[in-house]
């Protein structure tokens, strides 16, 4: 590892931020057109974030600030490991790629823990309720998702994201969304949960619990949480692209797949209502978990892969 690797990593995190913020802006426009509005300009999200960063805010003590720093740091760190294509990857050494799948699930959790800590540290009960809902949602969507990933890793014998990508790109192998259709559907539903899109938007729920974890933030802290949100969306959508859509061999392929997945999730989100939090849990532990287990049994014990 040289300094160049780390610079590439920071570059990827920055790229992820810019990419997701732009695509987020474009999506706001798309949704606007769907609802017969003009929608904001595509760079509106950048304006929002930089305006927030420039404002003077309030702080509720050191843990309130420290949590935000830890959260953003954890997310930037996670994004630094994310491969964009087969070649564009920060940490690889003589053909060994250090982009183990579990880094993305668990290093992401550091960021989430930081944010939860900061939110609870604000002393506002809405924030704590929001955190409670976010963690409960996480308990719901992670298990089916991880069972599907268990199937994928068992099949490919690889837990490196680049390895899984290359396995799908090999001649004779299909993308996993085709090879394991049930798993693909579960992956997408879980992605909706991760992104906090409706109907799994319960932990933000602006009209219900005053934006949940975000309730006390303003100014630079809120701006940093916006950056955090954009990068974590980048990580989650990229994970889906690499795990189920065969990854990408060049950057344009990646951009197209990324845009398609995010826009599709966003469109579904905009025609849905919101689940209650216990409905989120019962939903995920009913159909997605059943589908994930069925898929795992089919693939691992019967060896049927398209």
């Amino acid at each position, binding site marked *: 590892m040289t300094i160049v690797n780390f610079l590439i990593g920071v570059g990827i995190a920055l790229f992820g931020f810019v990419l997701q913020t732009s695509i987020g802006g474009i999506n706001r426009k798309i949704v606007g057109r769907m609802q017969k509005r003009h929608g904001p300009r595509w760079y509106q999200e950048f304006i929002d974030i930089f305006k927030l*960063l*420039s404002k*003077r*805010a*309030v*702080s*509720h*003590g050191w843990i309130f*600030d420290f949590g*935000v*720093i830890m959260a*953003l*740091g954890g*997310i*930037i*760190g*996670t994004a*630094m490991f994310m491969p964009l294509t087969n070649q564009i990857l920060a*940490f690889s050494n003589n053909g060994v*790629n*250090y982009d*183990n799948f579990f*880094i993305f699930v*668990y*290093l992401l*959790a*550091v960021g989430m*823990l930081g944010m*939860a*800590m900061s939110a*609870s*540290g604000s*002393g*506002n*009960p809405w924030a*704590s*309720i929001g955190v409670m*809902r976010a*963690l*409960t949602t996480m*308990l719901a969507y*992670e*298990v089916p998702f*991880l*069972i599907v990933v*268990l*199937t994928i890793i*068992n099949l490919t*014998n*690889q*837990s*490196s994201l680049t390895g899984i990508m290359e396995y799908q790109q090999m001649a004779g192998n299909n993308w996993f969304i085709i090879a394991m259709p049930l798993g693909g559907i579960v992956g997408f539903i879980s992605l909706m949960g991760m992104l906090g899109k409706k109907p799994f938007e319960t932990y933000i729920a602006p009209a219900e619990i*005053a934006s949940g974890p975000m309730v*006390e933030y303003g100014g*630079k802290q809120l701006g*940093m949480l916006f950056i955090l949100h954009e990068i974590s969306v980048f990580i989650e959508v990229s994970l889906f692209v690499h795990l189920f859509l065969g990854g990408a061999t060049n950057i344009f392929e990646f951009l197209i797949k990324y845009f398609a997945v995010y826009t599709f999730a966003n469109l579904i989100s905009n025609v849905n209502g919101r689940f209650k939090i*216990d409905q989120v*849990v*019962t939903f995920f532990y009913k159909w997605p978990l059943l589908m994930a287990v069925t898929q795992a049994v089919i693939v691992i*014990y019967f060896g049927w892969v398209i």
Partner: protein
Amino acid sequence: MGSIELLILFLVGTGLISYLLTKWNTFLGSVFTIFSVMFVFVSLAAYGFNLNLDETVNYLPGISFTQTYLGFYFAIIIVFVYLMVSFFHPYYLNEYKYKDSYNLLFLLSLAGILGAFFTDSFLNLFFFFELIIWTTMFLIPQGKSREAAVSYFGFSVAGSVAMLLGIFIIFQNNGNSFDIATGLAALSGTNAIFVFVLFLIAAFAKLGSFPLHIWLPIAHGNAPHPFSPVLSGALVKLGAFIAVLALIRIVPATGMFTAMDLPIGQYVVALLGSASIIFGTLMAIKEDDAKKLLAYSSMSHGGYIIVAFSVMNGLAFAGGFYHILAHALASAGAFMAIAAVARVTGTTKMKELGGMIHKMPITYLAYLIAIISMAGIPPMGGFISKWLIFQAVINKGMVFVGIAVFFGSVGSFLYVFRPLAALFLGQEFTEYKGVKEAPIMMLIPTFIIMGLNVYTGVFPAGILQYINNIIGELGYTGITVSTYAINGSNGILNPALISLVFAIGVAIAFVIFILLKKSRKVDLMDTYTAANFVHDEHLLHYSVDFYAPLERLYEKQSNWMTKFYTALAEKVKELGRLAKYLFMSKNMATTVFWIIAILLFVLGGEIL
């Protein structure tokens, strides 16, 4: 001093001295205890790593010692936890009714631990186990409740009896010898199955695994504050030791699951371990007392250890052994933090506490680092072990065990966060305005454990290499470790790199934060309340029934096991009443009848 026998005798001797010293002056006696444990720890660490301890026995009759990497690994972890906890004694003992015996029993149980892990005979193993159980049984009721000790003792004895039966079978099978190594190797056929089951009952009872877990929250929750870390970090690991003996050294010749390449016995145990993980996680989420919550988390982690040792390959064993270390450090850290809070506030109930972070920032940090490890998040030790266990489970294609393992892992975020939010964060309560951070002597072990939690997560290579010795000793191949990276079966992990990248991320975030305009400090009560005037900070503290919507989903099912054991106790009582009715009648005729019946039964063979 590198002789095992002398170390044990030393502990017995210092135990007696510390009894007298504590009687005279609590502080002095406790400091003496610290130095005694420290001496044992240093002796073990100096000679034990390369198995250079002296095994000769001159004074103790009928006892013999041998050294294995396995025994030493357990012994050094447990002695370390004992050492760390002993720093807490000077500040707690004065509250206890029988404080003079506390240090004595503490040191005696440590002597039992040394004996149990270094002996080469099953009978000695049983003797030392009983020594540990009997000494600790008198430590637990010094806390809040006597019932806790009864429950602990009951389950421990059930485990001991099961183990004793297993030992008898081995004794008879192995040509009337109690030797551990040959005894386990000689087992075959149905004897192997019996011993396997009996030893696992003992292991489950000690480890507090499903379905023998009822004692765990009762004992952990009610034990004296400085003793809970020992129970959870050290003593339940005895169960893991027996589980290793049973699961790895005895493989009964049952059928195999070819799809997973696992013996059926091992798979069933893995499923029981999974039940333990799920049950522990769900109960921990529901729990309102911080110590009981951590006790249920110990149960869930015990499940991970069981699962790891039942997946028969070197990678899983490495994960299991590493998890024993990581969980010992994490749970000792977390329990010690809670103990420090309980010392100044007098409660461990989460609804009565809030905002302790402003008074006890270092304790808060210790708890934070411990729970990050407990939840298996990098850059702490718990991540490494969970990663290894995940790999093994995935490679074997164990889907149903996989559900439990992942559920426990995500569920642990939920329950470890609860004390963090309710106890340390949130509104600052007026009744605790006057409390202070723990004294410097209590912070020493806190800092050491914090450091080790991070160290085990950043540089696991050295420890894993040592674990490879144990795995080699058990007859399996270890895992490949380089200076920084660990090679799993389907990928490579570089914990040092992850930590460095995380640090870089935090540095970038810190620079962004510091460059922007400085924030205005406001009070905690100065929050958004939808324009209502809230005057009392208790009303703004969300801590009771934190996960209420989730809890509601399994509320009805959550007391099944308690009901089962209550019903079982009732049945045992009924049986006792029946026996009393039959045998202990006031009617002379009945008594005579039974005497004759028993005489006939006993002499039956002679007459016929």
